[in-house]
């Protein structure tokens, strides 16, 4: 589904990503974890072709953004942050616009169902600028699922969600991954979520993926202090190493 090889990205003269290799098979739900500034958001934006890549390749279903930008973009959905949404449109209008951008005749009923499950129903026709943070966050997440793209890219999608909405979203994402409908790459600091709901986790540190755990390893970790402890130990070791990244 998603293949990243030796991805290097610099911003302002500093290496943000320094040779990232990542393979995400179809139907896998993977957490991208790491300290602040590790490059999680930059990696997601690079996959979306929003940041110019210095070296390396990103392919989704064998397609690259430079050869076939429209088909490439059809294959992923990116959840937007609340402040990226236009304040003067309602969630419904914004999602209609996204559906139209993906050449759908109308807003799919499935998106409206998920909106109802997330408790966005009563906010659907209010201007986004007058919606609560949670309602805007839900709209940002729904942006990614319009058109059922085979790859979902989510950056801290549970921020600002109430427990009911967060649970409904986790359930729905898990169902989609289990059904092989889509692969999901989720950047998060919520390690408990990664342990309980996901198929694996990749630790991004200093612009590289330094460790990856699969579902079985995550379960094993639960018996010995969990992912949190494993990650903290890995970060401390990296800090202690000469020339290691500071977090």
């Amino acid at each position: 589904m998603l293949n990243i090889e030796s991805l290097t990205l610099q911003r302002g003269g500093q290496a943000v990503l320094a040779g990232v290799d990542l393979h995400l098979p179809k139907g896998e739900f993977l957490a991208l974890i790491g300290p602040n500034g590790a490059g999680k958001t930059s990696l997601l934006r690079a996959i979306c072709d929003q940041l110019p890549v210095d070296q390396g390749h990103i392919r989704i279903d064998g397609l690259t953004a430079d050869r076939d930008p429209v088909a490439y973009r059809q294959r992923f959905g990116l959840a937007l942050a609340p402040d990226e949404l236009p304040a003067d449109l309602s969630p419904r209008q914004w999602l209609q616009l996204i559906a139209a951008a993906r050449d759908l005749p109308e807003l799919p009923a499935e998106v409206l169902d998920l909106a109802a499950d997330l408790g966005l129903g009563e906010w659907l026709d209010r201007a986004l600028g007058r919606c609560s943070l949670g309602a805007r966050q839900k709209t940002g997440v729904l942006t990614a699922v319009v058109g059922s793209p085979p790859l979902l890219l989510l950056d801290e999608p549970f921020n600002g969600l109430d427990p009911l909405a967060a649970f409904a979203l986790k359930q729905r994402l898990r169902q989609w991954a289990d059904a092989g409908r889509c692969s999901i790459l989720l950047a998060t600091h919520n390690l408990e979520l990664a342990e309980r709901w996901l198929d694996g986790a990749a630790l991004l540190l200093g612009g590289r993926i330094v460790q990856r755990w699969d579902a079985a390893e995550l379960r094993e970790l639960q018996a010995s202090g969990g992912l949190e402890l494993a990650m903290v130990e890995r970060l401390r070791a990296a800090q202690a190493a000469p020339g290691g990244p500071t977090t």
Partner: protein
Amino acid sequence: MHPILLQSRLRGRLALHRWWQGQPDNAVLLLAGLAMLAVLLWAVAGVAAATLQLLSATWQNHPMLFGMTLAVLSAMAGGTVCGRYAQRWRRGIWSVQPRSARQLPSLLAQMALLSAGLAGLSALTIGLLLAGELNLAVLTLTGSCMATTTAAALLTTRLGRRRVAMTRRQGRLRAASPTWPGGAFDELLQRWLADRIGAQWRHGSLSLGGFLAIGLLLPADVKGAPLLLGLLLAGLLLRWLVVLQAGGRLLLEATPALAAQPLTAQRWRQSHARCVLAASAWLGAVAMLSLWLLGTAWWLAPAIPALLLALAWLDVLILAVHRQQPRRRTLVWRLLLVLFVIAARDALPLLPLLWLSAVVWHGRRVLQMESPDAEH
């Protein structure tokens, strides 16, 4: 100094610091802006000379009327700025800080003092320029401007509380957005533009600077109904310009939000072009009518709207090329305007050639960007 004024000072310093760090990009922008301003002043100097004389004559013959107009304008400007500060104090981040009740009167007093000082300085400069000496009339003008501005500043900030309540009520009424019936992307983008333009039309402000520019360009011999109608239409024209800017801004705002969507640059450009050109056609018609009513030469009345359309078309192309980098768009426009104004003043036949060159150059860039081999 009041904390909110300290905050403004700090913001100004930070902006200056950021500007300094952004060199040489900002320096080029500033130079282009200064060049544009100088050339525009040079270009309108000839036209405005007669109007300035008229202004001077009005000052000599009707000092009371002149003084009152200036005092009202000064009070309006001062009141607006002070009202904005009082709103920020009551509703902004400062409203949740542990602050004393005495700080609001202190803010009012400091703001009133500042605006009265600025109003007095401006009135004194204008008075000295027109009278050529410091006399009783100039002092009276300065005093009256300071008095009205102080009164307006105090009144606006006092009335601020009532206005906040009204804004909240209006906000609730406007909270629900209309639902779109659906359609293709281009249609929905058009609807969004139409909604934004409608909102801008209802709430957009008229530029005082624009009105003053029209006033300076008015021929002295037009009177009565044609003058009034012409001014009204000119006001409408200014509003259209605000609306047109809103259309451009929306597309710049929408670009990052829709960057991850499967859209081609061509679809973007077509949607934007339709909106801008339709608005420009209206703008052209209003411009032609107002110029005709204001007694402009017969050939100039259709020429200016045609120029507006030509510039709007060029803007569509410039925006298509630089939609990812709005600052470059500003820079290109400043440089082009300097060239256009110089050509219009001293080498008129070069003007269409310049415009055509700019259209062809940007058109080629757009086609290159849209070609399948283009670097995305």
